[in-house]
């Protein structure tokens, strides 16, 4: 494995990856204003694995989308390392996503016309120091299905391809929005295993959104969301491995 400084740096060095202050997002829908985020403060540290937990509609996705440069905030500020994301232009946001962020969604969003390997290669083609597509797929345990198209893979396998695609460019952060939402417990566990192993082996800062409370135990820290606010933050004294999780 290529040595990148990132993985050697120990977790808890308190170097912040994301810093968010007073972030709000208001959707103007007709006569009603929806406050998807109403003043969120949070810091994510390098190498940390965070779980964002909360009921549907509590603003988790909105926060993650802003952090990942997919959406813009109404007010407040967010920094990625020293750079203020909330001040970036559309073009700069694209570059930010391209160079620093990996996404995993509930619906895998693979390109159906590209095989597993090609879906990964699609991204490595445009990044500066990527790993080989086969290596990324190996990390998620898919070295035997490289040339299959998405239609030929199960849901769990597709999601692991999506993870491989997200990490192949060695992003600093991996943002996962309900990665197990469409999967059964057994398959979901395999996906979580892939995420934790990436977090451990590459030291990628990882945020996982879920409304499934069982998953919170795999995280270093858990953020509880409600009505567009973070109502509580827990630090897991004892993390569990994904195979201990059931739902």
């Amino acid at each position, binding site marked *: 494995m290529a040595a990148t400084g990132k993985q050697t740096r120990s977790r808890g060095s308190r170097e912040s990856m994301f810093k968010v202050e007073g972030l709000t997002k208001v959707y103007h829908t007709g006569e009603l204003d929806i406050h998807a985020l109403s003043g969120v403060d949070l810091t994510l540290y390098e190498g940390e694995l965070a779980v964002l937990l909360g009921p549907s509609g509590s603003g988790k*996705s909105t926060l993650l*989308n802003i952090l*990942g440069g*997919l*959406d813009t905030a109404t007010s407040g500020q967010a920094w990625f390392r020293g750079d203020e994301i909330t001040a970036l232009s559309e*073009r700069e946001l*694209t*570059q*930010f*996503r*391209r*160079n620093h*962020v990996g*996404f995993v*969604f*509930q*619906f895998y*969003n*693979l*390109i*159906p*016309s*590209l*095989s597993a390997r*090609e879906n990964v*290669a*699609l*991204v490595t*083609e*445009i990044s500066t120091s990527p790993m080989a597509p086969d290596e990324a797929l190996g990390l998620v345990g898919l070295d035997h299905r490289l*040339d299959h*198209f*998405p*239609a*030929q893979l199960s849901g769990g396998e*597709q999601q692991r391809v999506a993870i491989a*695609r997200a990490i192949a460019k060695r992003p600093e952060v991996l943002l996962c929005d309900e990665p197990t939402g469409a999967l059964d417990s057994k398959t979901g566990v395999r996906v979580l295993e892939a995420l934790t192993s990436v977090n451990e082996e590459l030291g990628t800062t990882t945020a996982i959104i879920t409304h499934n409370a069982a998953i919170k135990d795999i995280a270093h820290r858990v953020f509880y969301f409600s009505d567009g606010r973070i109502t509580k933050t827990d630090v897991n004294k004892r993390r569990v491995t994904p195979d201990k999780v059931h739902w």
Partner: protein
Amino acid sequence: MLDRKLLRDMKRLWAQALAIALVMAAGVATLILGVGAYRSLDETRSAYYERYNFADIFATVKRAPEGLKQRILEIPGVSAAETRIVKFALLDIEDMAEPATGMAMSIPDYGQVHLNRRYLRSGRFPEPGSAREVTVNENFALAHGFAIGSTFSAILNGNKRTLNIVGIALSPEFIYAVGPGGLIPDPRRFGIMWMSENALAAIFDLEGAFNSVSLKLLRKTDQADVIRQLDDILEPYGGTGAYGREDQLSHAFLDAELKGLAALSRVTPPIFLLVSAFLINMTLSRLIALEREQIGLLKAIGYRPLTIGMHYIKLILIISAAGILIGSVAGTWLGQGLTILYADFFRFPFLIFRRNPDLYVIAAAISGAAALAGGVRAVYHALTLPPAVAMSPPAPAQYAHLGIERLAALKVYSHLTLMALRHTLRWPVRSGLTILGISLSGAVLIMALFTLDSIEFMIDTIFFQSDRQDATLNFNDERPIRIMQAVQQLPGVLTAEPYRTVAVRIRNGHLSRKLAITGKRPDTDLSRVLDLDLQPVTLPETGLVLTQKVAQILKARRGDLVWVEVLEGRRGLKQVPVTEVSQSYLGLSVFMNLDALNKMLEEGPLVSGAHISYDKARTGALYKAIKETPEISGIAIQSASLGKFRETVARTIHMMTAVYIGLSLIIAFGVIYNSARIQLSERAREFASLRVLGFTRGEVSQVLLTELGLLVALAIPLGSVIGYWFAWAVIRGFENDLYRMPFIIEGGTYATASFIVLASAAISAAIVRRRIDRLDMVRALKTRE
């Protein structure tokens, strides 16, 4: 509730709906305007002929006594006969240097005119016996700015007279007034002069005699039979053979023109209509296919399939109604404009607009049915899916490896290109249909554009390859060949070549046709005969050179022996071989070596006129001399004919072509725009994924542009092939006795059509590109609502 959705759908889809409606409108409009204009003109012509009693049979003689009229009337089947004096005269008109030609035509001093009645636009007819008053045809008056009271000079039987215009008239006999030797009506250089019969008789020594007769037949009379009997009666008086309307110059030209229009309307509009129907069907079915999730949702919340189906059918009906309405209004409006334009050119005294309910019904039915069929198919398909399946995003489609993936390592192409290629090949039928759709839009463009090439080629062949003389002189009678020395002596004349025309009837088996043989010198350099490969022919020492169309009409081939019945002079029946078949786009001609012709006629070396080239610097002197030469009864100036030809063509074919080009443009753009938009909708999710992965807007657009480019690249050659066939169909439909359009499609036409298709693609791409820029990543990535 659903109706509110309908409104919202229309708002969402308006650009695409409008594009589809416009494509449909183009198809509908073409049918209505093309066929409508033809029908109106045809009807107007019939009514004109009928109301003004246009004759059925025409004949000319040298001189026949008035008493002969009674015998003519006794021919069974003849309902009316009218005798008159018709003579050509050179005109000297103040506003032009070169002499013009006039056709003096008698009108009886007493009693009624029964046949070929004139419509008096203004003024009156000449006073009985007046040798100074004339009524002229309207186009001639307009071309010179003549009004009642204007005067001009004419050389009548060698004497120059000043003529006073007392009236302006129209006649069904001269809708197309083509002077001797002319190819195309030129009202500046050829005019009709109606004069008192007694006066003309006195001038031309034809008292108690006539030299022209026209007949009207009873219904169901055998025309050929009457012609034969009339010829027998007139023969002793120098009859040159009677002929029916089909050989009457004005009728023949007008007929050719209308037939051309009919051909264009028989071939082009149906192609347009079917192409647009196909495109609507294809586009609507794809558009509706995109609605499958909505359909699933509606079904899931309990709407009955029939209700949902009706909802989409209403959507289709709104689009179709808009298309048909726009097409009908535009078609009617353009059709009337075109009819008026033609009618103005022909100077019909009145105009009958045919209402054509059948056309509206046919156009509406075909387009509406195509739209419904396309839409209903897609709606039905979506309705048969269980709601859960319909609502969830479609399962990832099965793709296959192309076998070129290894090249990726060489960086020959990017994965974005691979996406585009695989996607295009994944749906071969759909890609194929899109290619076909785009190529059809290119094909109709070629069909609309190529006529200009054919006409240019025709002009080049006629005016620059074949008839290269500067002018053609007509003598007022056959003259001994000696006269050529005098012609050569005319000021400025560089070369002069004699020709002789003889009226004949040529028979091959049971097929026969009244024609004129033109005799020329074998080595003629000015007015050349061209073979089928457009190479100049040296006229053989014996035998006839038939133009291709004549050979076709008579079913005669090279080497066949045909009968030539001479209708002039000493007459006689000769058997002559066909020694060559030549090319000609205008008229029906037969050529012969001048010496051979004179020998066959058993007459001395006579000529009827001369083709000349002259020094342009001495034009004035030449014209002056010609006006003073009593033997010359007419002059046709080639450059004037060419100008007139272009002008005429510009008024007729170009008009039609311009309209068709406009409609093709709409079709091309409508189709390509819709294809691009649908492609974008189908793949919004994929493109959003790419944006999330950090691909720039430009890179994402590249996928769509590669696909569109691929389809267009394949569509262009296919469109050229289809366009070639369409054009061929038009040429075949266009062919008639007087005109044959050469089938010529220049490279430039393919290039222009391709360019327009590419430009439509580029504009569509630019519009779609803007949509990609505005793609809402977050929304597209959620399960679609």
